[in-house]
């Protein structure tokens, strides 16, 4: 009997075009749009050598040129001033350096590359000031061979590797997966309306049948979870295989998290459907809006939102199922350890179980003399 109910609920979901669109197609469409829109977004961040032209009209100080070459920061070219101006106007170079009376940097607009060039040049000009100041203060230093042992290019920093997985954009996809999982709440809400006799005629009929209510409810819910889980899997496959977004290699952990997400999402919707007494369309609209708000708070529309909530209101971050899913995926992607992932997984799971317990307590032994 359970399998029978399971089968028919599942069939019903597949044949419901609206459910199919929102639960399956909508995430895929959004993922495609993300992919198209953000594909070039991160490329501006990586460091490329700053393109600088050196004017050949006047001689440049020799040590400057060699220092620039040594630093490995610049991509140098030699042009005349008129050519350089043209290159600048076309934004092919970040700036050019000429040395008429003093060193001068000519640029088109301010920016990071220009700042790098300027600080480097400042540094070069300033060192001679420094040496002059020092010798002025203590002339004997020259005799002591001070000038021979000078070094200006020592590096004092040591980089600690953070992680190679630093692509911020994946959080959009994580939030999208969270949304996919949480959309199951609408189906969960629908499932409740099929077992709660005062909510629909079908439910009244189901209650008359000698099947236990718990059995009917659990079978329906598992069909819903199953359906949503399959669509989440399709979304993951689509994002990682076709759109080629790198989710890391812990696929199994991602799958487990999504399963928990679907479970909690369905339970949330079922609880909502059970406790809120409104028309079914209104309930579904409300639910989908709540889901969107939860996803917004976990970074679906504005990435930084997730960080802001986490810093300013960590409580909200810990009770928001969308954020638990997103954060779990993020922890898998970014951190080497599993500590944070399991924390999220546990919170998500216990939230789902709590919802489920409340539902069963409310559902049991409700009987109607008349409806």
């Amino acid at each position: 009997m359970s399998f029978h109910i399971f089968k028919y609920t599942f069939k019903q979901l597949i044949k419901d075009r609206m459910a199919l669109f929102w639960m399956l197609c909508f995430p895929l469409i959004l993922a495609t749009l993300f992919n198209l829109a953000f594909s070039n977004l991160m490329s501006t961040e990586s460091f490329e050598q700053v393109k600088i032209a050196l004017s050949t009209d006047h001689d440049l100080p020799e040590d400057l040129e060699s220092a620039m070459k040594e630093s490995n920061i610049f991509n140098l070219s030699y042009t005349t001033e008129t050519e350089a101006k043209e290159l600048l106007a076309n934004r092919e170079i970040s700036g050019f350096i000429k040395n008429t009376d003093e060193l001068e940097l000519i640029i088109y607009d301010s920016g990071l590359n220009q700042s790098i060039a300027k600080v480097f040049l400042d540094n070069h000009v300033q060192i001679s000031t420094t040496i002059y100041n020092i010798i002025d203060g203590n002339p004997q230093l020259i005799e002591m061979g001070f000038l021979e042992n000078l070094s200006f290019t020592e590096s004092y920093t040591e980089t600690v590797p953070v992680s190679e997985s630093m692509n911020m954009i994946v959080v959009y996809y994580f939030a999208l997966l969270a949304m996919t999982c949480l959309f199951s709440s609408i189906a969960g809400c629908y499932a409740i309306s099929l077992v709660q006799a005062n909510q629909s005629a079908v439910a009244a009929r189901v209650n008359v049948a000698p099947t236990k209510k718990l059995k009917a409810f659990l079978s329906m819910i598992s069909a819903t979870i199953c359906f949503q889980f399959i669509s989440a899997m399709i979304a993951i496959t689509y994002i990682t295989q076709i759109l080629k977004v790198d989710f890391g290699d812990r696929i199994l952990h991602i799958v487990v998290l999504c399963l928990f997400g679907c479970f909690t999402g369905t339970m949330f919707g079922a609880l909502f459907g059970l406790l809120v007494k409104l028309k079914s369309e209104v309930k579904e609209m409300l639910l989908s809006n709540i889901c969107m708000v939860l996803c917004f708070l976990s970074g679906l529309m504005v990435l930084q939102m997730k960080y802001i909530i986490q810093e300013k209101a960590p409580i909200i971050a810990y009770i928001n199922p969308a954020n638990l899913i997103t954060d779990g995926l993020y922890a898998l992607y970014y951190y080497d350890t599993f500590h944070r992932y399991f924390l999220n997984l546990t919170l998500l799971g216990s939230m789902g179980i709590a919802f489920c317990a409340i539902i069963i307590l409310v559902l049991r032994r409700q009987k109607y003399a008349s409806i």
Partner: protein
Amino acid sequence: MQVFKAFRKIVMKKFISVFIIYTALFIGLSIFFTSSGGTQVEDAFELSEVRVSVINEDNTALANGLENYINGIARPVELENDEESMKDALFFRQTEFIVTIPNGFQESFHSSQNQSITTMSVPDSANSEYAKTLIDRYLNTAKLYATAFPEISFDEIHEKVLADISTEVHVSFVDRIATSHSSELSTYFNFLSYILIAMFISMVGRIMLIFNNKEIKMRNYCAPISINYYNYQLIFGNLSLAFIVWLIFVAFAFVINTGSLNETGSYLYIVNSFVLAILCLSISFLVATFATKNSIDPIGNCISLGLSFLGGSFVPQAFLSDTLQTVGTFNPIFWYVKVNDTIGEITSISRSTLEPIIYGILVQLAFAVAFLAVALVVIKQRRYAHQ
């Protein structure tokens, strides 16, 4: 004008509250969007501000001096000294460069084997290269003084280093006209394309669904008015609705950015957005001919999000992939955003600067006419199908 009257009554009785909620919602969205984005172009040279967090474990004169120097040039971001919050902040780019000055840094500064400052950053990012240059510059100069005058204190060294570092190379701009500060307005109007198209499809679509109801249509076609006149009244009704919505959002643009109304090109934004309103209207008119009560929301979502994502309403067009930029020619929103960006860069009104803008506007109008024509043809076809 019976049809128009009916239209007005339907709006006032059935939809007015929904429309007000919609408008309020989208106004909220656009405030949020405009305030989060938008960069200003400055005329004087400004050093780029990298977001840097300094974690000072040493707290000696040298370490404090370095910290003050970095905080003066970069934008300081406070962070807690634990690994997780550091890593999180870095991932979400709240900070771009984390500097940890280890305990005992000043003491080992004199010896040849000095302790290194540890840094954390996004791998291979330009910002971190920049920040490293700054740190090395300060420390190299400090080291020179420290070797030359071993007897002076680090506080004095800090003073001397700061004085030296203020030596600057002369920077000048290649001849160009100063850019106006219309980028915030540009962001707002770019985002407007999403708002208008989403709102119109949902509003106009819902009303048209009532008129497209089979029974009501059959009754209406019985009336002694020509189908063309009937359609024109409907279009006029929709137009007036669109006009009100457009007016609210345009007025609002200048409420948020007070004082930008009299800038060059401001009225060009208004013209362009009006063309956009007409365009969105004819798109929604077309959508309404084939959508049903259940499918209008999904279709509306797909079209509005799709066109605006691909057109560059959310992300600047320069960031879109190359194929998208080519395919964008077929996307009316792409043209709208392109015209907006051109207006943003405009500095004076002349024939040559106006030409690309007018061209873009004409393309949008052509799209609008094309969509409307298709819609009218579909409506006419349907009519014969029912007979």
